[in-house]
């Protein structure tokens, strides 16, 4: 009953006209950035962040959260119609969604992805409501060693799941930790790697780095390659999936929701991993796995449900532990701190308005997104028809305004340009940006937790292995790190034997 009262209290907050408007605005912007390739949710959140400073923290967080989960809805539109994912989490939707569009079934593909997202988003919010309070209570028991182990696990999971080389992921994580250590040391107050530059005293901002690594670098790559988009011409009548479509998809959606949500909870998990995991599982369980990749509707429904549930699940570590699980939630964490809120176990107690207001706004946000994404699909397709030659200067302009307006600093524009080059080269050399960003965000928190743990244990690293929760978290991280080595070892033995 206490939870029900809290949810009702949340609805009282979100149903205030101003909050309702900001929830709608967040969903609208989220859908737009999801539809437009090259401008993802992190960039959009960073862009609108300075504009939220004069809002109440509740309204601001409702809007920024709306952008985040709203982008998951919009991302599928480009995947299905243009074969270019609007969001990384919709990459896997291209495989079957675009094939469906080419077979004249763009309507059902768009429809099932919107319905799947809605169902997953709504179920995800339900689980979030019931899981957050007990997890927040558990998190109160966390001390510095547990926090440090959890952050190590988060970084390990992310590097383990990055495509390509895990070693490259680890190098990126190290680079992120180094970048995160620039600025004033929180414990001793000493300047580190600042080279007497005033702009570096507070550390390198997350927003210019994120905008550069993800936004600017994507524009540079697309301009270099001269991308020509072929939008599939089709009518959008028949967006409602048939009864057979629903029957084919019901379990895929449910499985996608559960996988997505629980992978979203893990630091380093989130929507991208969830969508790939769902696709893999559906293919494995399917009676006709050979048809995957040729336009199978459950291959659209599962991953789209998973990425939405994943984005909802990602709010659990953010709200209950104060730990971001991906780039977008990392920027949200920064936003919380700017508003004077400390996400973590005490948020639910100290700021129930924000906690329950944001969660309740997700129910309404999902309904708004369904309306925005189904009847208004024609409008979003018109945005897709804007030539990239016209679109890219606007993406760059919004990034520039977003970066400058945060601290009114020209130096941050130069940092963004520098990170744009870095991100561009990283993509050329097959390095992932996500571990770098997560490590950069977690770096200062990790360092504090590590140093405090060592002070408590008087210099003994055994403290991470003598406390049960810490042992489990650290042990899992070590197993994940060793898994690739074990795989190689097993292959060598098999080759030697046979």
């Amino acid at each position, binding site marked *: 009953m206490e939870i029900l009262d809290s949810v009702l209290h949340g609805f009282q907050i979100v149903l205030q006209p101003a909050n309702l408007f900001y929830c709608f605005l967040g969903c609208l912007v989220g859908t737009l950035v999801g539809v437009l390739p090259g401008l993802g949710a992190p960039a959009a959140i960073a862009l609108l962040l*300075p*504009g939220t*400073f*004069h809002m109440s923290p509740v309204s601001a967080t409702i809007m920024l959260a709306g952008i985040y989960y709203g982008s998951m809805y919009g991302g599928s539109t480009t995947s299905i119609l243009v074969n270019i994912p609007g969001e990384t989490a919709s990459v896997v939707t291209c495989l079957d969604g675009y094939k469906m569009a080419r077979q004249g079934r763009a309507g059902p593909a768009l429809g099932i992805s919107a319905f799947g997202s809605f169902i997953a988003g709504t179920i995800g919010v339900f689980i979030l409501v019931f899981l957050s309070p007990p997890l927040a209570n558990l998190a109160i028991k966390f001390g510095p060693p547990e926090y440090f182990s959890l952050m190590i696990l988060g970084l390990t999971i992310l590097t383990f799941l990055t495509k390509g*080389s895990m*070693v*490259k992921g*680890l*190098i990126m994580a*190290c*680079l992120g*930790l*180094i970048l995160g*250590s620039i600025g004033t*040391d929180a*414990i*001793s107050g*000493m300047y*580190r*790697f600042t080279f007497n530059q005033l702009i570096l005293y507070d550390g390198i901002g997350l927003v210019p780095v994120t905008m550069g690594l993800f936004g*600017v670098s994507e*524009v*540079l790559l697309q*301009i*270099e*390659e*001269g991308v020509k988009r072929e939008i599939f011409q089709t009518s959008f009548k028949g967006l409602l999936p048939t009864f057979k479509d629903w029957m084919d998809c019901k379990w895929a959606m449910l499985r996608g929701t559960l996988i997505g949500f629980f992978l979203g909870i893990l630091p380093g998990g989130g929507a991208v991993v969830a969508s790939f995991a769902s696709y893999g599982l559906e293919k494995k369980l399917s009676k006709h796995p050979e048809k995957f990749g040729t336009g199978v509707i459950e291959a659209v429904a599962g991953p789209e449900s998973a990425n939405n549930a994943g984005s909802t699940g990602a709010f659990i570590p953010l709200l209950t532990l104060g730990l971001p699980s991906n780039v977008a939630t990392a920027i949200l964490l920064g936003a919380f701190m700017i508003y004077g809120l400390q996400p973590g176990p005490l948020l639910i107690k100290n700021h129930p308005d924000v906690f329950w207001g944001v969660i309740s706004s997700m129910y309404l946000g999902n309904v708004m997104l369904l309306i925005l994404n189904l009847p208004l699909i024609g409008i979003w397709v018109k945005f897709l028809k804007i*030539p990239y*030659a*016209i679109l*890219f*200067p*606007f993406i*760059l*302009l919004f990034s*520039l*305004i977003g970066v*400058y*307006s945060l601290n009114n600093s*020209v*130096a941050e*524009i*130069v940092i*963004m*340009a520098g990170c*744009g*080059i870095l991100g*561009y080269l990283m993509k*050329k*050399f097959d*390095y992932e940006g996500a571990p770098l960003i997560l490590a950069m965000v977690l770096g200062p928190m990790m*360092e504090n937790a*590590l*140093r405090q743990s*060592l*002070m408590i244990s*008087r*210099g*003994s*690293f055994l403290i991470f292995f003598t406390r049960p929760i810490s042992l489990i978290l650290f042990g899992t991280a070590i197993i994940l790190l060793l898994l690739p080595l074990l795989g190689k070892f097993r292959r060598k033995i098999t080759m030697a034997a046979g």
Partner: protein
Amino acid sequence: MKRLDQKSSFFWMIVSAITVFLSSKLPFGTFANPGAGFLPFLVGVLMFLFSLILFVQSFSKGEGMVKTLLAKGGTGRVLLILLSLILYGLFLETLGFILMTFLLMGFLLLAIGKVRRSLVIFLSLVSSLGCYGVFQLWLNVQLPKGIFNF
């Protein structure tokens, strides 16, 4: 990929060596009371080790798909965009948001996008004035006015 991995791992080895060198100048402290240089030093060492592993691994890799690092004709466009971003940053506070945004948008649309001139002027005007209206007047974001005071 083999050569690219060798080059990139070598680059990261240099970065990590510089990190170790710089952090060695900061107080390391003791294990019981770690100083400001403790974590950066350890991370620098770890990064060096990972780079070394990547370097060694790259020798066991086949050449695989040959990947072109730079697309033909595209490099110039990439450099022009980067240059325009840096120039925008350098002159933003002197010339002001509206004028610099007009110039930047005009340049990007005309030189990179090859959009027709009438549309370039229209879009540059709309974007500079529109963004000023939305961000400065509506969202209260402080945008620089420059020496012309607009």
